[in-house]
C-alpha cells in the first residue's frame, strides 16, 4: 500500500453562474494535500468552505475544473478503486422503500461477496450501528440520526481500506456521536485510513492525527491539532481566592466567580503578577498554561477570511 492513501494536487472546482453562466464562483481553489495511510484525518472548515466539494471531487460525483487526485495509488477515475473505499455522503438519503437490512444487502451486492458472507456482514453492521431492532422498518420511517447510522454502516460494510465520511456526526444525538467516534477509533485500530469532514472542532481535536483547515475554498493549514494550535501565542492563567475587596488593577481585570478569580497574563508577566496579587491579599490556588484551542485558530482564520478574503497562509506538517 502506498504511504499516502489520498494525494490531491491542485484540485480546483469552479461553478458557473449568472446570466449565460458567464461568471464563475470558485468553490475549491488549488487544493494540495495528502492523507497518510493509517491516519485519521479531519477536514475542518465552516459551512460552504469547500469540504464537501473536495470530497465529492474525490468520489467523482463532480468533476474538477483543474487538478488531479489519487486514492490508494490509483487515479480517482478508476472505478475498481471503489472496492477499497467506503463513503458516507453528507446528510445521507437512501431508498426509503427499503428496510435497513435490504439497503445494506443491496450495497453489499456490488462487492461480490457470497450470499452467506453478505448476510453475515449485514447483520454485523446493523449490530455495530445499533439498528438491529429497526432492521425491518422501511427507511421512510427513520429519523435523521438513524439514516446517518445506515449511511455509516454502508460505508464500512465491505471492510474498506479507506473510509471517507462527510459530516459523520451531523444529525446525531450525544450518544450517537459517541458511537460514531468509537467506530472511527476502531477503524483506526484496525489499520484503516479515515478522512472525515466536520465543523465540530471538538470531534476533530479528539479523534484526528492531523487536520486540514479549509476556509473560503483554500487550505489554510495542515498538521496535528497541537501543532496548529501551538502557533498561537500562549498565556498563563492564575486561579486565586480573595476575600473582601482590593484596589489592585490586576484584580479588577480578573474574571470573578464569588470569592474566586481567574486572571490571564502573558508568560513573562506571571511572577510580577503573582507578587502583586499576593500583596493585595489573594491566595493563589493554581497556575496553568493557557493553550489556544483549535477553535480559536479556526475562528481567527475565518475572521481573517471574512475581513480580507484571503490573508493568512499557514502550512506545515
Amino acid at each position, binding site marked *: 500500500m502506498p504511504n499516502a492513501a489520498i494525494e490531491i494536487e491542485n484540485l480546483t472546482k469552479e461553478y458557473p453562474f449568472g446570466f449565460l453562466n458567464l461568471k464563475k464562483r470558485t468553490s475549491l481553489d488549488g487544493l494540495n494535500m495528502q492523507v497518510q495511510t493509517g491516519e485519521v484525518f479531519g477536514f475542518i472548515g465552516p459551512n460552504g468552505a469547500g469540504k464537501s466539494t473536495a470530497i465529492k471531487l474525490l468520489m467523482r460525483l463532480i468533476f474538477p475544473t483543474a487538478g488531479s487526485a489519487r486514492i490508494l495509488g490509483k487515479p480517482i477515475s478508476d472505478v475498481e478503486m471503489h472496492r477499497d473505499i467506503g*463513503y458516507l455522503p453528507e446528510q445521507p438519503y437512501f431508498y426509503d*422503500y427499503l428496510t435497513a437490512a435490504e439497503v445494506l444487502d443491496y450495497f453489499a451486492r456490488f462487492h461480490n461477496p457470497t450470499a452467506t458472507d453478505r448476510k453475515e456482514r449485514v447483520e454485523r453492521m446493523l449490530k455495530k450501528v445499533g439498528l438491529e431492532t429497526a432492521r425491518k422498518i422501511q427507511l421512510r420511517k427513520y429519523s435523521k440520526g438513524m439514516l446517518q447510522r445506515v449511511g455509516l454502516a454502508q460505508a464500512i460494510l465491505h471492510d474498506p481500506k479507506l473510509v471517507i465520511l462527510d459530516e459523520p456526526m451531523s444529525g446525531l444525538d450525544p450518544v450517537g456521536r459517541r458511537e460514531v467516534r468509537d467506530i472511527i477509533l476502531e477503524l483506526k485500530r484496525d489499520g484503516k485510513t479515515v478522512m472525515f469532514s466536520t465543523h465540530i472542532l471538538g470531534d476533530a481535536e479528539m479523534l484526528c492525527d492531523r487536520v486540514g483547515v479549509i476556509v473560503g475554498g483554500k487550505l489554510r493549514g495542515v498538521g496535528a491539532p497541537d501543532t496548529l494550535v501551538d502557533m498561537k501565542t500562549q498565556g498563563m492563567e492564575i486561579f486565586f481566592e480573595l476575600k473582601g475587596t482590593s484596589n489592585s488593577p490586576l484584580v479588577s481585570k480578573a474574571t470573578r466567580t464569588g470569592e474566586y478569580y481567574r486572571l490571564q497574563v502573558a508568560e513573562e508577566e506571571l511572577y510580577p503578577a503573582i507578587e502583586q496579587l499576593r500583596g493585595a491579599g489573594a491566595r493563589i490556588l493554581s497556575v496553568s498554561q493557557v493553550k489556544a484551542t483549535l477553535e480559536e485558530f479556526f475562528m481567527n482564520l475565518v475572521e481573517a477570511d471574512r475581513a480580507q478574503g484571503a490573508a493568512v497562509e499557514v502550512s506545515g506538517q
Partner: protein
Amino acid sequence: MKRVGVVALNTFREAVRDRVLYNLVFFALLMMIAAIAVGQISIGIEQTVIVSLGLSAISVIGLLIAVFIGVALVSKEMDKRTLYALLAKPVRRWEFLLGKFAGLVLTLAVNTAAMALGLLLAMIYVKHALVRSDMVVLVAVYFILLKLALVVALALMFSCFTTPMLAILFTVGLYIVGLYVQELRNLPVNVMRPAMAAFTKGLSYLLPNFENFNVMAMAAHGRAVPGAFILQNTLYTVVYCTIVLTAAAAVFSRRNLK
C-alpha cells in the same frame, strides 16, 4: 453485467413497492366493464371493440408509466441524492443507467403481460372461445412493449441533461412526432429543393418511428403479422435503444451531481 442486474432488480422492486402495478386494478375494472357492455350493445364487432379498447388501454397506461417513471429514474436519484452512496461503490455510471433502464423495462414487461392476460380473458368472455388467429393480439402487445422500451430510453436520455418537466415535454413531443414519421417520408420531395428534401429524408430516418409498432387494426381483425416485420421491429428497437442509451451514458458520465 452483474452490477447492471443488481440495479435493475432494485428498480423493479422500487416500482412494485411504490405501487406502480396498482394500475392493473384499473385495467381489470376497465376490461370487465367493457366486456359486459360490449356483449350487450354491439353485434358482430365484439372482438374489434374489445381488442381495440384493450390494446389502447395497455398502450396508454404503459406510456404514462414509461414517460413519468422513465424521467424520474435518474432525476429522482439525483434530487434525493440516493445516487451518491451508490456511485461510491464499484459501479460505472453507464452500468447504473443501463440497470435503471432494464429495471423499468422489466416492470413494464410484467405490467404489460398481466394486462395482456386480462385482455385475453375479456376476449374469452365475449367470444366464449379463443382461436389461433386471436394470438395476433399477443404480437400487438409485444410491439407495445417494444415501443415502451424506446420511450423509456428517450425519457432516460432527456432526464440526463435537463429538468424533469422539460424531459417529459421532450419525450412526449418526440413520441407524437414519431407517430407521423411515415407522413414525413411521404412528403413530395420532388417539389422541394434538394437540400430540403435531403434534410426531410434524413430527419425521417433519425426520428424514432413509432408508427411501425401500431398493428392494432390487424389485431382487431385477427389478421396475421408477418414474422419478418416482427424481427424488423425487434432489431429496430434494439439498435435505436442502444444509440439513445449510449448518448445518455455519454452525457451522464460527465454530469456534475448537485
